[in-house]
């Protein structure tokens, strides 16, 4: 296997909300074109980590960030153009948030902001992204009706299509399958496998088996600490480096 370059480098990251310590000094790299799983019980700081990576942590004014997260070698807390950073990263949150726009406009939102105006180019992009999110067949006849009228699972796929629409280099999925049925989940998982060749995927999931199926490497976080990070062969084996990992992965606690 070719040696991959680190896409994201996290070193001694600490995040505190007033007096809640959400992340207590974690360090690891996420490599280019890998699917990187992050597992761990609720409240372990997974969502907070994603918010630091795309700098939406800025909208929690009480948050204090120390340590370093580098994307493409640049410290995210010090980047000059935070909008360019965010455009590099597609984010899918646990609960779908359809903007109050048509299905088409939801997906065309980011490309339009990036300055794409040509109708045919937008049409093509919208269709491609909806295909990738396994939603095209269900909505192709009503692209111009409101995105917020879709079912929960459809809306989640719409947000995935939207996250793909600005052709991000990094795709973050935060427990994306919470509101979707298993069949759709499997469809999207197939999509993610294909996306690996084009981008880095960070898959935060509460479903241990999902990380096992999809990820190349996985990190196990608990209470703001990194318990263990390593290739799936190790993490999901019978003897990972840390006993707690074994117990969590095998449902002994968590």
């Amino acid at each position, binding site marked *: 296997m070719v040696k991959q370059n680190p896409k994201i480098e996290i070193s001694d990251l600490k995040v505190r909300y007033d007096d809640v310590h959400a992340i207590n000094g974690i360090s690891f790299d996420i490599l280019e074109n890998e699917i990187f799983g992050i597992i761990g019980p609720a409240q372990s700081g997974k969502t907070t980590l994603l918010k630091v990576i*795309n700098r*939406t942590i800025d*909208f929690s004014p009480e948050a204090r960030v120390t340590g370093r997260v580098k994307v493409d070698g640049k410290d995210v807390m010090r980047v000059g153009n935070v*909008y*360019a*950073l*965010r*455009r590099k*990263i*597609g*984010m899918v*949150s646990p*609960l779908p*948030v359809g*903007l*109050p*726009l048509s299905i088409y406009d939801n997906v065309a*939102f*980011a490309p*339009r*902001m*990036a300055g794409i105006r040509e109708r045919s180019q937008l049409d093509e992009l919208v269709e491609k992204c909806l295909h990738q999110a396994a939603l095209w067949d269900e909505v192709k006849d009503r692209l111009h009706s409101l995105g917020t009228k879709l079912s929960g699972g459809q809306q989640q796929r719409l*947000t995935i299509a*939207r*996250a793909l629409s*600005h052709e991000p280099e990094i795709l973050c999925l935060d427990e994306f399958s919470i509101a979707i049925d298993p069949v759709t989940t499997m469809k999207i998982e197939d999509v993610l496998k294909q996306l690996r060749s084009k981008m880095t995927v960070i898959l935060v999931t509460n479903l241990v088996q999902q990380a096992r199926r999809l990820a190349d490497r996985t990190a196990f976080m608990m209470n703001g600490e990194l318990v263990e990070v390593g290739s799936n062969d190790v993490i999901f084996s019978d003897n990972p480096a840390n006993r707690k990992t074994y117990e969590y992965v095998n449902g002994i606690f968590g």
Partner: protein
Amino acid sequence: MGRGRLEIIAESLIEWVIRLCGISAIIFIFAIFLFVFKEGAEFLFNELDLTEFFFSKEWYPTSGYNKRYGVLALIVGTGSVTILAMLIAVPFGLGAAVFISEFCGPRLKESLKILIELLAAIPSVVWGFIGLTVINQLIIHVFNAPVGLNILNGGIILALMSVPIIVSIGEDALKAVPDSYREAAVAMGATRWQLIRRVLLPAAKNGLLAAALLGVGRAVGETMAVLMATGHSVNMPNSVLDSVRTLTATIAAELGEAPVNSDHYQVLFIIGLLLFSITFVVNMTADLIVRGVRKK
């Protein structure tokens, strides 16, 4: 399950009280309309020449031998002052609403909101007085005009009076946009302006429209301040520096002097009906637009 008899009675009682309140509101409005209508009806049906009423600019209700009741100049007066006021107040008010809701820190936001509520609490005579003195002088100096009591003055005063309504309702509308929309847009790399233009304004457009139309309603119905600020002379204006008189100001100024049930008295009530219809149409349009927007 085990709901007491009393509880059921209490509930239906409350329901009826609420229903009564609703119905009485409708009854009051009809009663007001009927009263105004009744006072003007005789003249309206027997003597009034509607063509003259609407299309003549001659308003001589107290002339000794040739009374004329043309309200065209008054309609133009109300229209011009209102339109000017809205041209100033809507952009200003909505701009201020966006500023307060999206660009202010929490401290500044609170102070500005208090300031705006303060503005809204100033009685209209006081605004009229400001028009008579401050703005009057200002217009005379800036435009070198002989008098400063005119459309411009009335428009500015009305704008100042409607801005607080537009700001506070507009700000509420923006505040009601769920944070998740903001987060989603921001996560896709939207800048502050893109967020406002592409997400917040479309999401809040009903409320913003309502804000603007309530501003219009305020402006059309305002009496005292425009009476003092517009110069109160019946006149077809050629520019914003001409004095005019509005429908409302005419009623306020003349009703006290018109002998009860005289022609003049009745015509003033017909003007009241006209105003009633104008506000009704404005509100209906607002409602229809808002509903149309919602359906889409």
